[in-house]
């Protein structure tokens, strides 16, 4: 306890700095995966992608990041067992942040793919299980998190398969695809707006003072969806189409309509990514703050501080502005053969999956979910050629990232423990 009262302020500052750096890293590195598809498919320019990401990553992080943050803060470790030595938790959380941040730097430097989510979860479980005791880890929660890592790409793939198949049946394979596109694309826009609004509202915006029941949430979500659909329909209605309808061209016209839809799903992707990944940076910070502020008492219930969410959201935006542009360009360049009619299906499926995960407090990898979604479209024969070896890359990154995050975290934990507790 004394350690907390003596050094509490220092711990918070330390955690805040590292947390901000981690958020910065997420913005610089991870956002590109969420926005790269939109740029690669030609729905957004790089500049537009950065603007969309700035607004919606911030919004997602601030408005919907609370649940996942809570999981990382108090869902993985059983705080009740730590009542006697709360300072160990503080060391651990800071260590976890340091570990995840440094791993992010190392992997980015060497050009390895890295999941910020896996890093932080591995780091937290690492210091807790090895540094303190395996018993304080809530293994059932960890188990469900790991399961969600497998389920989320599968779910996104299934959703995107269904979405794209519906597009094929309703629009592309008709005798006048353009006519049906104008009619049905606004529905998909409604779907996008509705899904994301619903999950966000449903899980509550209590931290900004908006507490809604299910009916109100549903209503507002439906309204949001309608507004977006109407705006979309107006934009599409104003578009001019060359009726040269040279068969080569009428697909180009079709894609232009889907490009408008893809702008909506790009916003959704950014929002979803922000809502899920901000926790990787501020979850541990929130844990430290709550322990220090309660004078060493570990309460399992306090909601995530608004200021902390703000810090995380800002960090992401900074990282995005300073480095993100270049990285989005790099990823977007490699995404060939993706047209908006495919891209939107992948993005909508991925965004929906991620937002649902955020709503249920499950930290998942946005990138892997998006890969699953793209594969789903590929299964519907929507993409000419995909490398299945990417699955091997993903599994490899799991095998490397989890131990690396855990290992680094344990090292830093012991260092901090030695510095402050000895």
């Amino acid at each position: 306890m004394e350690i907390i009262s003596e050094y509490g302020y220092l711990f918070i500052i330390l955690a805040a700095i590292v947390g901000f750096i981690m958020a910065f890293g997420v913005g610089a590195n991870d956002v590109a995966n969420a926005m790269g598809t939109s740029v690669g498919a030609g729905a957004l320019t790089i500049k537009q992608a950065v603007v969309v990401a700035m607004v919606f990553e911030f919004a997602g992080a601030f408005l919907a990041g609370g649940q996942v943050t809570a999981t990382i803060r108090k869902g993985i470790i059983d705080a009740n067992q730590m009542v006697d030595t709360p300072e160990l938790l503080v060391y651990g959380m800071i260590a976890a942040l340091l570990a995840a941040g440094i791993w992010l730097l190392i992997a980015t430097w060497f050009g390895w793919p890295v999941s910020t989510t896996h890093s932080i979860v591995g780091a937290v479980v690492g210091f807790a299980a090895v540094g303190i005791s395996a018993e304080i880890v809530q293994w059932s929660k960890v188990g469900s998190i790991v399961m969600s890592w497998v389920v989320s790409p599968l779910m996104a793939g299934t959703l995107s398969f269904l979405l794209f198949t519906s597009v094929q049946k309703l629009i592309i394979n008709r005798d006048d695809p353009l006519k049906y596109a104008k009619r049905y694309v606004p529905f998909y826009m409604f779907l996008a707006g509705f899904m994301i609004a619903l999950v966000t509202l449903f899980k509550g915006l209590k931290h900004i003072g908006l507490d809604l029941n299910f009916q109100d949430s549903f209503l507002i979500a439906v309204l949001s969806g309608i507004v977006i659909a109407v705006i979309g329909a107006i934009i599409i209605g104003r578009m001019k189409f060359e009726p040269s309808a040279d068969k080569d061209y009428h697909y180009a016209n079709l894609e232009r309509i889907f490009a408008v839809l893809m702008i909506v799903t790009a916003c959704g992707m950014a929002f979803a990514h922000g809502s899920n990944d901000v926790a990787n940076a501020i979850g541990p910070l929130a844990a430290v703050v709550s322990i220090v502020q309660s004078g060493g008492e570990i309460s399992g219930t306090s909601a995530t501080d608004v200021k902390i969410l703000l810090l995380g959201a800002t960090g992401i935006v900074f990282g995005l502005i300073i480095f993100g542009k270049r990285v989005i360009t790099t990823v977007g360049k490699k995404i060939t053969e993706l047209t908006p009619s495919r891209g939107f299906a992948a993005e909508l499926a991925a965004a929906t999956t991620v937002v649902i995960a955020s709503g249920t407090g499950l930290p998942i990898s946005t990138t892997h979910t998006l890969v699953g979604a793209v594969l789903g479209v590929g299964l519907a024969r929507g993409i000419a050629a995909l490398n299945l070896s990417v699955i091997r890359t993903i599994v490899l990154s799991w095998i490397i990232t989890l131990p690396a995050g855990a290992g680094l975290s344990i090292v830093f934990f012991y260092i901090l423990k030695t510095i402050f507790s000895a």
Partner: protein
Amino acid sequence: MAFSSPLSVLFARSPIQPMQDHVKKVYECTKTLKPFMEAVFAEDWDRVLKLQKEISKLENEADDMKRSIRMHLPKGLFMAIDRRDLLDLLSRQDRIANKAKDIAGVITGRSLIFPKSLHADISVYLDRCIEACNFALKAINELDELITSGFKGQESKFVEKLIDELDEIENDTDKKQVLLRAQLLKMEKDLPPIDVMFMYESIDWMGGLADNAQLVGDRLELMVSR
């Protein structure tokens, strides 16, 4: 700072454009048979040799493209088109160019002189065989639109129409071949016998151009109907 993302690895180079480039090269090769035969009929053997070399060169280029496509289809590639279908289609396309090279080769090697009375009919016959190849080219050029439409709907109907026309042309070439052989039969006793054998073979091989083109269409039809 290097950067890597699974999304960068995910999208692979599509084999469709290379397929379309290959069939274009095959058609170029086949088309050259027309000026080739004109030179043969004019008995301008220098020009015949030059054009035969040209046809051979184009066929080699097509072979190189074929090999390149095959090498860029690793096992881990997941495609909208079945891998075996694609490779089979590629083989059949390539066979057209092979046939063209064989025809040019044998006629040049023997400095084969065709009876003047047959020149016009052979020209018309060859034109029709080359037209079959043109239709195969048109059909293959629809491959990326077929993928876009998921092999269903309007696009696939359009392709099926092309394939039907291709079948008709091939039928027509068969009929013309029968007539040509009948004409040759009437004069064969008055012509050098071994030359006549090779004339029959050349006519047969020209028909082979159309047959192979029709097989290409056939394969495509199977892919569309799945």
